[in-house]
Each structure stands twice: as C-alpha cells, then as structure tokens.
C-alpha cells in the first residue's frame, strides 16, 4: 500500500519535472567574464532584448570575475553543471576542443555570418578545420606615452626603436621628479607577454619551427638584456616584480610613467579616471631589423557540446554578433572591433587611439595554440622575475626556462 503510494508520488514528481523542463526548453545559460562594471549590465540588456524578440526564450546570464573564470568553468564542467554558452580565453580553447567540451559551430555558420568578421580575429578559434568559438573580445597592445612628460623632457616624437626608448627614458629620469621613464610589469598575469614585445622586435619567436621553445636564442637574450638594462639604469619604476599590469597602469594614470605598453582599454579608463592626462598612443618600438610585434588576444564565446538548447543558444550568439550589439560592447569595454562593418563606423575608424592599435594588427602575434601553454607562460615569467631581480644570469635562466618548456611540450604530445 505505502509502496504503491510512493510509486505514484515518484511518477507524479518525474512528470512534473519533465513538464517543467519542457516549459523551460528554451532556457539558455551563459557564463560571462566580467571585463568591467559595464559587462554585466550589457549582457543583461542583450538578454532581455533577445527575449523580447524571441518569445518563449529565457537567457540566464552569470557574470564571473575574470580571475576565477577558469576555476569556475572547470568546476562546472567536472560537475556536469556547465552553462550552454561561455566566454573563455581563446588560448584555453585547445583543451576544450581536445576533450570534446566545445561544440563545433560550422553547421550554424553561414557564409554571410562568416563575412561579418575580420579574419585575423576569427582564425584563432579555428582548429582542425572547424570553428569552435567566436571572438567576443579582441585586443592588441601598443605603447602609451605621457605627452606632458615628453614635452618637459624635450622629446619630440614617441620613440620608434628600443634605443630611442632608452634615450627617452633617460631624459625623463633627468627631469628628477617622481616620474619613471618606462613602466615595466613584473608580476602576475602577462608578465611573460610584456617580455614578448621585446622578443618579437628582435626577430624572436615563442615556439620555433622545429617545435621547441624560442627562449634559448640570441633574440631572447637580447630582448631580456633590453629590459635588464632599463631596470639597472633606474629607467623603470623600482621593484618591478611587485607591480602587476594594473599597478603600472595606475602609475601611468597618475602621470608618473613616461611610456608603457598595454591594451586599448587603458584609454577608456583614462577617460573616466584621469581625464586631464595628456597621453598619446604609438607603435611598439622596433628592433634593429625593423621587426616589431604586438600581442593579439581574443576571448572566445563557445557553445558546450552537452548543451540541450543548441539552436536557441546559437540564435543568441548570432544576435550578440550583429554589428549594432558588437559596437555597443566594444565601445563600453574599449576592445577592438572584430566585425568589419563595425570597424568602419566613425566611432572606431576616427578614433586616433584605436588607430594605433589597428595599425599594428598586421604584426599581431597570438599565444601559440598548444596544450600546456599556461604552464609554459609560468616558466617564462619565473625566469624573467629572477632576471629582473638579478638573481640569475640572462642566458642561464632563459636556457633553463626553454628546457622546461620543451619538457612540457614533449609531455603533452
């Protein structure tokens, strides 16, 4: 008797759950990385616009701080509780693809859709001939310089080469104020990237053609020597290993850094936080052979293979990549346009700051698509920190980091 009652109850319960999920069949959960305080509101607004245009759909946005995004996604995926769509760093994508987590999007992508993109930004998400992500955020790096400091020090033009940069930094140092010539980042995320600008300008590469690390090359030694000379000459801020990217940017906003290399979004921050700062944006200095390289970064939005509502999820993706939505997002966050039509809009085309970045795009290098990249980046950062602190010789440290990286490459193949 009681057993029968239990069966009925269970059956009713299951039916109720089935019904409930049927009525919410159009629910799409989206995990979003928080780029700034405007990110959450932007996506909430996009979700409600989409819901209004597509009755019966329910878009749920989860905003996650960028630092813990990887951790949150890992936990969600291992527990089988991941969203339908998520923003990830494109350099992580290879893991998502090789483990069958990310769904290929080619069945949905029409030629028209593909034609919206600037190819430089779409190509990093293409693996083994399939497109696995769409570039939701794109940026590159260029050199910011403080016009007032330059004027005071009698520097006419932003430096075009590293030698000129050093000379300019010396002039700023000679002013004797509390300003530093060159802002160098030596802590936390992208410490390695800050070094690559110098590396690329010397004609170096991260991974050589034979598939081994490019850190044990003359180009890499020369690049490290440039930074080491700047540190030893007192031309950078003191204690570089205690300053991360935001710390150096803050010094720049305070007008205390002559030159630094960073992303387009610093211009947005300056507009809001230090509107009186006179700054300019120029190309990253070139090496002796005229080589230069900027770091191209994209974040991708991916669809999960286990999503139950792929069609609706795709429709929402499509909506996010309409020219209008893209322009709104990129203007908010200070990212580069990834959509050709958007890039032609006066808002972006006539923006002098952004132009310095887009001009560098032909020399944009992306982080190599290779398993274990984060570990290699950490090995590089560690070697650099020891060099910056004077705890190790340049050649010995870089050779050791290269050996470590080669070991990681081997272990992952």
């Amino acid at each position, binding site marked *: 008797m009681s057993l029968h009652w239990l069966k009925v109850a269970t059956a009713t319960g299951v039916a109720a759950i089935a019904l409930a999920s049927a009525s919410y069949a159009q629910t799409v959960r989206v995990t979003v990385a928080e780029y700034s305080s405007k990110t959450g509101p932007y996506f909430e607004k996009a979700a409600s616009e989409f819901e209004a245009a597509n009755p019966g759909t329910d878009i749920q946005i989860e905003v996650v701080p960028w630092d813990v995004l990887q951790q949150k996604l890992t936990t969600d995926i291992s527990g089988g509780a991941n969203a339908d769509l998520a923003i990830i760093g494109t350099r992580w994508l290879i893991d998502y693809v090789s483990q069958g987590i990310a769904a290929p999007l080619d069945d949905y992508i029409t030629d028209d859709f593909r034609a919206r993109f600037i190819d430089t930004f779409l190509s990093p998400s293409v693996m083994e001939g399939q497109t696995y992500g769409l570039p939701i955020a794109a940026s590159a790096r260029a050199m910011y310089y403080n016009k007032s400091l330059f004027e005071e020090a009698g520097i006419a033009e932003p430096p075009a080469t590293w030698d000129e940069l050093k000379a300019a930094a010396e002039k700023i140092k000679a002013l004797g104020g509390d300003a530093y010539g060159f802002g160098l980042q030596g802590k936390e995320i992208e410490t390695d990237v800050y070094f690559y600008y110098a590396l690329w300008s010397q004609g170096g590469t991260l991974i050589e053609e034979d598939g081994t690390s490019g850190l044990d090359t003359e180009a890499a030694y020369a690049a490290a020597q440039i930074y080491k000379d700047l540190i030893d000459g007192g031309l950078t801020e003191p*204690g570089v290993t*205690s300053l991360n990217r935001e710390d150096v940017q803050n010094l720049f906003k305070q007008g205390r850094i002559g030159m630094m290399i960073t992303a387009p979004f610093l211009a947005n921050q300056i507009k809001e936080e230090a509107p009186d700062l006179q700054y300019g944006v120029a190309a990253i200095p070139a090496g002796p052979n005229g080589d230069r390289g900027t770091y191209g970064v994209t974040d991708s939005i991916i669809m999960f293979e286990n999503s139950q509502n792929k069609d609706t999820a795709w429709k929402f993706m499509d909506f996010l990549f309409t020219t209008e939505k893209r322009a709104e997002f990129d203007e908010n966050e200070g990212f580069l346009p990834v959509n050709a039509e958007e890039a032609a809009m006066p808002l972006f085309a006539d923006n002098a700051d952004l132009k310095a970045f887009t001009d560098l795009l032909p020399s944009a290098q992306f982080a190599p698509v290779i398993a274990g990249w984060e570990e290699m980046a950490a090995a590089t950062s560690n070697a650099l920190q020891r060099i910056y*602190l004077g705890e190790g010789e340049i050649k010995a440290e870089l050779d050791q980091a290269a050996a470590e990286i080669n070991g990681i490459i081997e272990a992952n193949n």
Partner: protein
Amino acid sequence: MNRSIFTNPYVLIAPAFLLAAFIILWPLFQIGEISISNVNRFGQLRGFAGPDNFMAVLADPQFLASLWRTVIWTVGIVAGTILVSIPVALILNEDFYGRGLARVIIMLPWAVSLTMTAIVWRWALSGESGMLNSALMGLGLIDQNIQWLAQAGTAFPMQIAIGILVSIPFTTTIFLGGLSAIPDDLYEAARLEGASGWQIFRTITLPLLRPFINIAVVMNTITVFNSFPIIWATTQGGPANSTDILVTYLYKLGFNFGKLGEASALSLLMFALLLFFTIIYVRLAMQGERE
C-alpha cells in the same frame, strides 16, 4: 529501565556520524580516486594511473621548496601568535577601566574577511604609495621606499607578520577563556606567600593555561598550514614561486595548469602530513598533562 533500541547511544549518535562521514569522507574518497587516475583538466577521469601523480608531485622541485616554506610559515605564525597572545590575554584579563572596549577592539579584526585584510595589507606594503613606507619615512627610519613585495626576502617575513596579526583575536579568545577558569584564591594564596609576578605566571598561570595553549597550537597549525588568502592576495606565491607554500602551489597545479590528478595527490599528501603532526602533537601534549 527498559532499554529500547532508540536509547542505544550508538543509534543516537548515528545520524550525526553519518552526516559527518558523508561530508568528510566522501570528498576524501573522491580525491583519492582522482589522485590515482588519469584526469583531464575538466576533472573527467580517463583511466587508471597508479602512483604516477604522486611520483610527479614528489619529483617536482617546487614541491620540496614549498614544503620547506610551509614549515617556516606554519611554525613562524603559530609560535608568534602564541607569544603575542598570552601577554595580550593577561592584560585583557586584568580589571581596568575600558577593558570591555579594549576586548572588542582586539576581537574586531576577526570579523573582517581574511582576503580583505590581505588586500588592505597589499596596499599598505605597496612600494610607491604604501602606508608602511610613508610611516617609516615619517619616523625617519628609512630614506628610500622599500619594495616590500618585490622579493621574497622582505615579502615572506611580512606575510608571516600579517598571519600572526590575524591569528591573535582567535587565540586571545581561547586564552581569555582559560584565564577566567583559574580560581582567584590560587593567586591570593601565592601573593600571601610573597611570590613575585613572574613566579606566579610561571608556576600557576602557565601550567593551568597549558591545555588551552595546546588547543591553540593545534587549531592554529591546521588553519595556518592551509591558509591561502594572505599569500595569494599579496604575491600569488611570486616572484618566481619564491613565496609559494603548499596551498598556493596546489592552487596553481589544479586551476592554472589544469593538472587535477597531481593536485589531488598533493592535497592527500598535505592531509596526511597534517594528520600525522597533529596526532603526534596531541599525544605529546597529553603525555605532558598526565605527568
């Protein structure tokens, strides 16, 4: 009295025991399973790996370096905390005007999140605009900013000092409880006999406080050994891993590098270490008490 099954102590304790076992043992079992498996970065198991993950952790030079630093970190903070907290508790136990307020002030930091405290210290230690540098300059102790967090030589001792500061409220509370349990007539009798303050402390207060010190040592050791926020918020274990302790190293292994198998193996090793030393300490301390 009629002994029903419902009054059997084992039955009475069963629900709580089962709940505790589920909460404590189940994750432990899961971690054990991951640690002997091949596991991808999303925590999905891909076959049996045997002791590979443990071997990989033990072979990593970062493991030994972090272990050694964890020992310094734990011993430094626990010893420092006890040494500071005993006099603080003694003073707060005295009857003086404003004692209530003083006790509240000592306890207040306890209510602030550890991460927030660590972030505030990160600002205070900043080489450019940090409060500590300004204060030392103002006092004329230094004539140039110190880059506290730029190298392990200054960063790690500061991190230990922060660890001591944040552990004081909890430890002082334990000692205050211990002190209030010591009967006043013992002190009166000692004073009548002409004992000095130091003698009273050494022969009455300290021995009677012993069980509380033991509790404070064990509890602090466990939390400090596994304490993540101070180091993570100030240096993330850098520069060049020189301030990494086992937990920060564990976090990097698991979440930055996606080596969940090795991370699980490491956390089991940490669990075993902590269990081992806690048991040894508790046994030694209890032996001391019995004597």
